[in-house]
């Protein structure tokens, strides 16, 4: 079913809520005249909360084309809307008590944040290559601004600059790929492109287009070799922004990657997963290599980091590599595994960054050595961080383990054993550097004296992040059911 512009608005409430909030924030920004005020954060939180609620309640039966088919509303899109809105809400929360941002948390900061959210909403539901491109840029441009939010700080400026240059290049390559697709099929609708390609396309341009699109999306999810920007950006950006970039846009990137490739390059009858794009290129193998490279490079580079933020940045590259395992075969079960992993990743990664923010508030540094003795200085924060880190490693009974089990299971099921083995060995490597932070916190004596108090509200927030990280490791049936339902709409 394809709806016209006006009829679509009813189904567009989450996006409208975000847009309205952005506009209100603009007004607020003018009224406040660069003064700091809690009102901006509250307004942003309220807007995000409303959007989350609307997204949650969206009727997501069969896929529905909105705005003459530019945007597709289905369970898959709803899943990602809820996920990204949740991430944004948590990040707004994180920003409120971040000392690093204290000087500059003005309304404009939240305007950028919510613009990214709007872009992510559109990205996860775009069904037209023009829309995909617009949404991608809507995610990217405010992200560049956020990464360079400290105008005076060198690393922040560098981050922003790198981000822009890499981003522009990736976009350029991707749009070239889009134009090839349009040239071959005469349509901008991704379902139509997929249908025409399925009737038999010239293998070379199709492969070329697929490769170019992969560059664009690969950049967004920071897959190796398109990852070069991310460590510097992640280090230079304010910590809440880093947390945001490593979860939100990455999830949206996966959403569009999955939807695009699934619709354009896989046909329903081989939902079993054979890529039929071009017989001369083994796409499964290619993506398996991409996945293996991403996790290995990310992990190996993380090993020697002395800065926690940078370490988490590299490790988040590795996590994108794990998630790509679910993408290698383009099967429904593999996609489910990605969705599930994104949910647990949201909690554990945001949680880890949240503790970094809390610690940095106290000692103004993110060096691993400044975490020493945290176990005795701030036991709640330290234990939470340990839980997040072990979850990221993938050790039961934490949720990260279950996420990995699903990803491993799919590649093993389909016989890509070497990839599972690479991923397993990577888990061992990742333990080495995650455990180093734990070691510093619990096994070493504090270098700085005094307690590091964690106020009541951050404690609650930590609890909100820790509980799912633990609980989903013990009972995760409901979440996998939701992931299953979200994917089913896409794959039918």
């Amino acid at each position, binding site marked *: 079913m394809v709806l016209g512009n006006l009829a679509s608005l009813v189904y567009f409430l989450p996006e409208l809520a975000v847009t309205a909030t952005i506009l209100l924030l603009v007004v607020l920004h003018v009224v406040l005249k660069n003064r700091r005020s809690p009102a901006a954060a509250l307004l942003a939180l309220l807007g995000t909360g409303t959007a989350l609620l609307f997204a949650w309640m969206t009727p997501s039966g069969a896929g529905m084309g909105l705005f003459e088919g530019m945007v597709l509303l289905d369970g898959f899109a709803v899943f990602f809307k809820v996920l990204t809105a949740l991430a944004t809400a948590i990040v707004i929360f994180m920003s409120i008590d971040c000392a690093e941002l204290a000087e500059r948390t003005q309304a404009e900061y939240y305007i950028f944040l919510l613009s990214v959210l709007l872009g992510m909403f559109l990205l996860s539901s775009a069904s037209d290559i023009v829309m995909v491109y617009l949404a991608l840029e809507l995610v990217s441009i405010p992200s560049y601004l956020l990464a360079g939010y400290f105008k005076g700080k060198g690393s922040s400026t560098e981050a922003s600059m790198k981000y822009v240059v890499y981003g522009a290049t990736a976009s350029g390559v991707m749009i070239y790929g889009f134009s090839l697709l349009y040239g071959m099929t005469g349509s901008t609708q991704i379902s139509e492109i997929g249908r025409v390609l399925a009737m038999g396309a010239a293998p070379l341009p199709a492969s070329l287009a697929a490769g170019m699109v992969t560059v664009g999306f690969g950049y967004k999810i920071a897959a190796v070799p398109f990852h070069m920007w991310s460590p510097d950006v992640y280090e230079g950006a304010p910590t809440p922004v880093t947390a945001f970039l490593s979860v939100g846009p990455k999830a949206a990137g996966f959403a569009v990657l999955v939807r695009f490739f699934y619709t354009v390059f896989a046909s329903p009858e081989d939902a079993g997963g054979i890529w039929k794009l071009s017989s001369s290129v083994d796409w499964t193998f290619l993506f398996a290599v991409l996945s293996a490279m991403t996790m290995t490079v990310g992990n190996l580079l993380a090993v020697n980091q002395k800065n926690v933020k940078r370490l988490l940045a590299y490790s988040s590259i590795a996590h994108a590599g794990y998630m790509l395992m679910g993408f290698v075969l383009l099967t429904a079960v593999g996609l489910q595994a990605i969705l599930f992993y994104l949910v647990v990743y949201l909690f554990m990664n945001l949680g880890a960054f949240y503790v970094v923010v809390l610690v940095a508030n106290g000692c103004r540094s993110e060096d691993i050595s400044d975490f020493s003795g945290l176990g005795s200085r701030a036991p709640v924060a330290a234990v939470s961080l340990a839980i997040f880190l072990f979850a990221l490693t993938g050790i039961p009974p934490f949720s990260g383990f279950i996420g990995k089990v699903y990803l491993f299971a799919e590649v093993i099921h389909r016989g890509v054993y070497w990839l599972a083995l690479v991923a397993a060995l990577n888990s061992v490597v990742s333990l080495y550097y995650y455990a180093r932070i734990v070691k510093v916190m619990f*096994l070493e004596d504090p270098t700085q004296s005094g307690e590091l108090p964690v106020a009541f509200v951050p404690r609650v927030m930590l609890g909100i992040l820790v509980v799912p990280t633990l609980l989903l490791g013990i009972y995760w049936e409901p979440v996998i059911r939701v992931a299953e339902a979200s994917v089913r709409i896409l794959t039918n």
Partner: protein
Amino acid sequence: MDFINSHILTLMTFLPVAGGAIILMMPSGRDNPIKTIAAVASFLPVLLAVQLWFLYDRTVAGVNVASQFQFVEHYTWIPSINVEYFMGADGISMPMIMLTTIVSFLAVVGSWGIEKQIKGYMTLILLLETGMMGVFASLDFFLFYVFWEVMLLPMYFLIGIWGGPRREYAAIKFFLYTLLGSVLMLLVMLALYFNTTNPETGGHTFNMLHYMQQATHNAWLKGFDIRILMFLGLFIGFAIKVPLFPFHTWLPDAHVEAPTAISVILAGILLKMGTYGLMRISFPIFPDVTKWFVIPMAVLGAINIVYGALCAMAQSDLKKLVAYSSISHMGFCLLGMAALTPAGMIGAAFQMFSHGMITSMLFFLVGVIYDRAHHRDIDGFGGLGAVVPVYTFFITVAFFASLGLPGFSGFIAEAMVFLGSFGVFRTIVMISASGIIIVAAFHLWALQRIFLGPLNPKYAQLEEINAREIFCLAPLALMTLFLGVYPMPVLNLMSASLNHLVDVVKMVI
């Protein structure tokens, strides 16, 4: 009572961690209540183990027959991928479950002297007990794996926070080694899951007992080279835990740095998980590969026995000596299992139980002397026999038990292993037997250097072993002696199952 009897394994598994949760909620600094709660939480499983002992029917085998398992608890956990909460006991797990409760309780009591962060320590040790109990009681591979891994975290912290000077290195080495083994196990588990079908429902399954019915395996899994790879994946996972040469290097480090009670648990229970895993999982699921693999396993066992003993002989640190002698003794388990005869298999299982008690004693005793002298250098003592006669008595008992003197359980175990394996591979057994001489030699030599000869005047005032320490040692010493004279109580417990296990492996062509 009915409730207790029908959920006895669950209770035994989760009572300790429940105690840990209570401790966690208490304000820190109140050491005595914390210790009491920990002792109670680990003593209740001992009582339940006694109950288990009386209820257990020794005539049924279990192993691969679901209906013959006892104290079974079977619930669905995650229906979408058929993960089950499936606990049960048979003759393979029974001795290990009993051993776990006893050694854990004694380890908690033996930790009375810990002063640093007692709250965290006790919580972790109780969590550790839950993990170990779970491993020995689960019959669902997924559940087994979760418990197997759960154990790693407390162990890492217990060594890393409360250990000796090189504790950080030892803790991370232990963690990395075991995780490496576990991830291999995880891959094999998933491959098994996708290539077997539950005969009742037709879906995939994590149920170990289904895996043991070879008919559930699909064509891919029947390929022999595939089976060898999967067996090896599991084998490395288990071998790291045992630890078998060449995967043993984490053990001396971990032992030397770990606090006394943790060394006790490590040697007394943790190492047995490796051999238990082989008996419970590898052998019955891959009987054909097992038979193909017996010679390499026997050779590895022999290497462990001789090499471990030689290493032990070269140590000047008493704790390292005991650690290497553990490596040597665990070699007997592998040798006995590899023989695939009832006597060898029972000898191996009995060695697991017996070594659990003896080595616990040894590590307690090393801890006692370290507490007083603050070093463990064998040559740094001398003539202590006259100063601390009671302590000398206990350590002599433990040493004699460890070197396999008749009258102690270790002798029975080793004799059975040799008995069971001699007819199968003579040369290997004869080489292994030389290990016994080396073991005897270094034990006696150590005894002589520490307790006999001229008195080292530095230790003329050495404090005698106290009542609490005797409380930890006496039950173990008595059991070792008793089982050395009359091993039937434990042998009866396991013989039906192990005989059946041998049949299961042997029957397959």
